[in-house]
């Protein structure tokens, strides 16, 4: 085990968050909280929820997503986001890379998941 497993996990999460957001927006327009809920469902992608908003702002600055304020029925405004053409392309490229990457790493780490070392000692 590394000395700071939490730090490594946080970096992996951070690195994948961009792809996760692009993937969440694949199905259409969503506002920030909807994106967060999608990411939360059955995953531990998010540490601090506040990190999603600056990332959305950066994706917008990069031209990958667009946004618009819409008044909700409840009376308070929501900022909706959707993918641009460049965003869809980036999302597909990232997803392709990720699938290949995860598959090869998955094969490699298979023995570790049994929790036994080569010497047959339980960890």
């Amino acid at each position, binding site marked *: 085990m590394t000395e700071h497993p939490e730090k490594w996990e946080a970096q992996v999460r951070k690195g994948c968050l961009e792809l996760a957001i692009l993937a969440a927006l694949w199905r259409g327009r969503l*506002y*920030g*909280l909807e994106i967060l809920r999608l990411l939360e469902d059955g995953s531990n992608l998010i*540490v*601090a*929820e*506040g*990190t999603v*908003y*600056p*990332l959305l*702002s*950066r994706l*917008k*600055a*990069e*031209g990958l997503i*667009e946004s618009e304020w819409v008044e909700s029925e*409840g009376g*308070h*405004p*929501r*900022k909706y986001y959707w993918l*641009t053409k460049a965003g869809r392309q980036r999302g597909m490229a990232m997803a392709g890379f990720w699938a290949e990457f995860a598959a090869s790493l998955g094969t490699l780490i298979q023995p570790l998941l049994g929790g036994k070392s080569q010497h047959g000692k339980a960890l």
Partner: protein
Amino acid sequence: MTASNDSTQLMEYYLGRLRRSMEGFPAAEREEIVAEIRSHITERSLVDGVVDPRRVRETLEALGRPEEIASQYRTDALLTRAAGSHSPWVLLRATLRWAMLGAKGFGIFMIAVTGYTMAAAFFVCAILKPFFPDNIGLWVGPSTGFSMGFRTAHDGPASELLGHWLPLVAMVLGLLAIMGTTHALRALIRRSGRAQPRWRAE
């Protein structure tokens, strides 16, 4: 309705801290960010259509410190602004911030510091030459090699090459150092992909 007032106060306190941490942002941009976080807190805290005080507390905790959120916005905004700026001050501040994030940023910050320090040294030479005509110059000598700066007779024999031309030459070299450093930094920041010019966000 004291509970509801409390939670409103708590939310306003949080948003106030966020707003204060984002000093220096264009007002419109800052208020839009605050509005988006406000919308998040409000909707996240609704229970049966009413803002629930306990949920407000949980929501704020899940969001993380407002200073941390502001800091993430700021890093990206600074780099975006720096990529389009010619001001050494803006570029130094942006790269210093970047330096705290990793090795690449640190390397680029060192380029910024070295380049601008060199430019400053040329300007100082140009300005001080009239006051120390015998000590400041472009020196050639066995111990100095070839260098511009301040030296006294104690530093060994050396001859000065520029004379009255020194202030002008030093000024030009200083300007070239500033322009070169600025140009290199802007190119490095743009190439990093962390800061895309706004006009691409069509």
